[in-house]
């Protein structure tokens, strides 16, 4: 927020009188949009502090008499399992995914962007083609495969693909980024005697930081929020991730614990938010520096 303000100030100084009304309008408009965007978040925060029977049906956004019961109940766990279990499990899956994606996708991207080999364009097209495959087509064959390998009910099915550069989107993102890096850099390195591995590790990878950070943020959030994968592959509540834990609060013919669910939703939001906040600065920085190179 502070960076844009710094760039705007000199401009305002020269044309302040004419620009002020417009800027006020602009800010008011932006604030209005912000309210719309943030409304659900505020609703969740408000609801998590209401007693269960007021959450659904009551139109008031904020609780008249805030309570912390919902959070206190979370501390007792869900169905006999401490909620920290779900968070640890989700972290294993999410951080594992980030590591896998960073490593394997950048390697694949390097090959596509920098190594000339027979059939490169065909393979690249095929890889992009996998983006078009619906998840549901792969679901059963993949399940059969992991079932035969006796890897069901472990985290391997959720992570193996990430270590094998299956996420075509990230490979594509990194390839596009690497293609924009000046070729002269690797040529200079090659003259100095570097092999592909060294060029990849010491020249290309550090320069790709913005792309790597973007990929980390997305792969973390996607893995954290993934529901179908953990649902299919994990068979014991002790191994469940947060997204599965969230669904333990209600069913059509059970007493629904809306309070617990909303409080858990808030708790589930936090790690993603923190991860984003921690890396968001790098994201902006990266975009800014890569723009300068032109």
């Amino acid at each position, binding site marked *: 927020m502070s960076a844009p303000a710094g760039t705007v100030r000199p401009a305002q100084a020269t044309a302040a009188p004419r620009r002020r009304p417009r800027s006020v309008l602009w800010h008011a408009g932006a604030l209005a949009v912000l309210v719309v965007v943030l409304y659900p978040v505020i609703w969740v925060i408000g609801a998590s502090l209401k007693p269960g*029977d007021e959450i*659904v*049906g009551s139109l008031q956004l904020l609780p008249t008499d805030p309570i912390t019961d919902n959070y206190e109940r979370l501390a007792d766990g*869900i*169905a*006999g399992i401490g909620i920290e279990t779900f968070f640890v499990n989700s972290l*294993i899956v999410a951080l*594992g995914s980030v590591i*896998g994606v960073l*490593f*394997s996708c950048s*390697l694949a991207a390097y090959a596509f962007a920098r*190594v000339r080999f027979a059939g490169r364009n065909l393979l690249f097209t095929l890889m992009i083609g996998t983006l078009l495959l619906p998840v549901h087509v792969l*679901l*059963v064959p993949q*399940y*059969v495969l992991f*079932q035969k390998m*006796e*890897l*069901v*009910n*472990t*985290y*391997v099915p959720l*992570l*193996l693909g990430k*270590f094998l550069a299956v996420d075509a989107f990230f490979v594509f993102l990194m390839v596009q980024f690497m293609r924009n890096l000046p070729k002269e850099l690797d040529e200079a390195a*090659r003259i100095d005697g*570097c*092999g*592909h*591995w*060294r060029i*990849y590790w010491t020249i290309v990878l550090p320069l790709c930081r913005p792309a790597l950070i973007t990929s980390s943020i997305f792969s973390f959030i996607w893995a954290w929020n993934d529901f*179908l994968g953990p*649902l*299919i592959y994990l*068979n*014991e*509540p002790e*191994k469940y991730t947060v997204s*599965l834990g969230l*669904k*333990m*609060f*209600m*069913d*059509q*013919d*059970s*007493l*629904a*614990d809306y309070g*617990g669910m909303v409080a858990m939703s808030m708790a589930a939001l936090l790690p993603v938010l923190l991860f984003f906040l921690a890396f968001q600065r790098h994201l902006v920085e990266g975009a800014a520096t890569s723009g300068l190179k032109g």
Partner: protein
Amino acid sequence: MSSRLSRTTGLRALGAGLVALGLLASGCGGGGDSGDGKVTIRYSWWGAQDRADLINKTIELFEKEHPNIEVKTDFQEYGDFWTKFNTQAAGGNPPDVFQNSHAFLRKYGQKNLLLDLNAQVKAGNLDLSDFRQGLEKAGEVDGKLLGVPVGANTFTVVYDVEAFKKVGVTPEPGWTWEDFDKAVEKISGSKKDFWGASDNGGVMYLYDLYLRQQGKAFFTEKGLGFTEADLRKWWGDHREKSKEGLLVPAKQSEQVKPKSSVSAELSAAEFTWDNFLVRYTSETDKELALAPIPTMDGKKTGQYLSSLMLSASARTKHPEEVATFIDFMVNDPEVGKIMGYNRGVLPTNAQFEAYKPEGPDAMIAEYENSVTEYLEPITPHPAGTDTVEAAFLSIYGSVAQGTTSVDDGVAQFFGEAKTALGS
């Protein structure tokens, strides 16, 4: 040369990555049967944490009495449960024993996914002698025993006691649709925020009862048991009443979801399964009660007992242990005391007598007792019942929203039902 060199280093790095992943796998792997003669069976059901707490207690009890059997449990919400079950069944890895209901018996029976438990009954591992009201036959399809009931329910009208008292109508056995309509009309009156009844035109089980009262049924052995004209009248009547302001409008009832219109205090009556009363009473302070379905002739309600069941997978490696487990879950009185009516009124006499119901559970028990004499046998639910039920609900939903006309909706439903039932 440099490229060959880099390829080997690259492969080595990849190998290191895989080893790391392998370590992770061994760290969190496990499961399956251990070497000490202990048998592990997997048990899945749908439900939320309240059911999980109860089931976990019953399993503790079971494992104490059968130390050689370990039960690993897994549960999801209804929709997710079937997503997972279908994938696992297609992948050849369904749970050994799982919660099931009448609507799915034929579907999975035809695919040979369900174990015929008759052999286990003969072998003495599963005792069916103590079931109430012929329930031991509830899971039988074409001579095969594909499921064993863990609880039984029947359809009902959940109604707002005060609203009905005000207009002087008492919902009681033998009341007619005329009585019902009159009450609904009076309750709705000119009010803008409270209606006489929820719009249940899309509830397959209610229409089934309505048809059964006329000697028909929703399903025959293979297909639908009614004509397009029948359905046009049923849906048309509901639309008519809704336009007259007698039923809760779709817009309002959608807004209060996942609450029902009755517990959201929009409606005075709603047709549903009697065990839903437990949830409804927890969501409202109003006094709710149960009544049988209105009749045409003052006698025939068309009602039957339906049940949640336990089914065993045909692929299970431990049919004996699974049968022992099911036997314990339906016959042990302690299990009855723990579960209460969470999955419906307890199925066997031993469990029924062991549990002393209170609150809404007591009302459900009383209601089921009061309708016992009217109950009839259940009509078959062919494979595809679940799809048909979902289509019936969603198509009526768009009819009620006004996006589809009654005629188009009926035609669409018959098309989808034909595909689902393969007829």
